[in-house]
């Protein structure tokens, strides 16, 4: 099921992002898009722990992915939360038969047109720092090879997030993770500021911030921070 051609493209992009001017928010968004693309899933989402026992939504491949991630947080129930709690992947869960496991989440996901769900832990040694969620139609079932590839993607996300091949000090995990969570908040605040400044929607503001970041070769969070500092 997994397309080798798309995997090659992905590795090139990942290698690029890891080298220079790494933008964690852009990277995680692209990763969810790739994860959905290569696995044949229709939507993907990613959450990280805030280290206070809660997960925070970080990125999704499309609005449905975001809706389902937030829905899991809202109801404290779902595959991403299970995966985070147990550290074990959830593979090929059939939503039609998941009413016992996820009585609130399963009907909502079915309503949005999904039939299967998968979740993969983002693991750094003994720490589970988040989870990658995939939502698909019934024929998008993963075989053992697919599972390895998607878990590798989740591992890449972890490594990228930590920005180092090995986190030598336990303290670095906290520093990087909290920094990434803050970056996302800064971008949301900047979306609101730009929307007010230019009289556009927050979605349009996000696209504007992204294109400014690209054209000036700056990280998205730097562009966002500059908007807020000037405001």
């Amino acid at each position, binding site marked *: 099921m997994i397309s080798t051609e798309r995997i090659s493209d992905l590795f090139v992009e990942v290698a690029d992002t890891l080298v220079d001017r790494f933008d964690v928010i852009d990277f995680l968004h692209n990763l969810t898009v790739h994860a959905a693309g290569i696995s044949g899933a229709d939507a993907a989402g990613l959450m990280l722990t*805030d*280290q*206070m*026992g*809660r*997960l*925070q*939504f970080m990125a999704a491949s499309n609005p449905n992915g975001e809706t389902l991630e*937030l*829905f899991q*947080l*809202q109801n404290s129930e779902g595959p991403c939360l299970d995966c985070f709690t147990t550290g074990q992947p959830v593979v090929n869960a059939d939503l039609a038969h998941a009413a016992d496991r996820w009585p609130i989440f399963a009907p909502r996901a079915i309503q949005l047109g999904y039939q299967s769900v998968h979740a993969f832990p983002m693991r750094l040694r003994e*720490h589970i720092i988040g989870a990658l969620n995939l939502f698909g139609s019934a024929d998008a079932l993963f075989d053992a090879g697919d599972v390895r590839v998607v878990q590798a993607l989740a591992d890449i996300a972890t490594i990228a997030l930590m920005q180092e091949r090995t986190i030598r*000090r*336990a*303290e670095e995990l*906290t*520093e*990087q993770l*909290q*920094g990434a969570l*803050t970056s996302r*908040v*800064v971008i*949301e*605040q*900047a*979306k*609101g*500021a*730009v*929307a*007010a*400044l230019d009289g556009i929607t*927050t979605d349009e503001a996000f696209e504007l911030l992204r294109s400014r970041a690209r054209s000036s070769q700056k990280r998205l969070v730097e562009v*966002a*921070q500059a908007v*807020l*500092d000037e*405001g």
Partner: protein
Amino acid sequence: MRALVRGSPAAAGAPMLTRLCEVAVRELRMSGAVVSLMTPVHRAPDQSGTIAAASSDRARSVDELEFSLGEGPGTDAFLGSRPVLTADLEKAFDRWPGYVPAALDAGVRATFAFPMLIGAARFGVVHLHCSRARTLTDHDTSTSLMLTELATEIVLDTYAPVGDHTPADVPLLAPDYRRDGIYQAQGMLMVALGVSLQEALARMRAHAFATDQELAAVAADILAGRTHLEPDPEVAP
């Protein structure tokens, strides 16, 4: 944790931050805790601040060192918008050549600095000192982050007084899954009212309390253009 620090609903401001420092020392087995308030100084090499509360005079003097030397973990945590956790200052001479010897002389061996912030809205730093080299357990990290969030909330409430509506029992931001709208509305309000990002959030909170609404609902109304808060110089800090 919240109840330990917030105590009686009438308590507010500095006494609450002092209690927070005392709780931090006790719960996290630290030798000192300090809350410093800082204002971003753009394109300036050093960072000034004021100490709002400390667990002891000794702890206070350690953080005063940092301001007089113009470098240190608290400064870096504030400027970098992320925690700066140093398990052993003996190994950090290169990073802070002035601060490390002075801090070691003052009996501090490990420091854990957590920025008080909500995205780009930065308030200061919660700085924990320990007299021996040590790391934080996962539980310690969680406790430190919660105390920092609480300190942020206490300081934020000083920006926009809400009269008799003491928001002591209302958490900083409402449920996690509805926070994005709050952050966006905060940025929008900053521009619309011409106030700081900090004050924009404080105004939203005050409005939420005054009208008995959830913060997320106020944010949604602001984003949809249904609510217009008025600039009001009287409540500016």
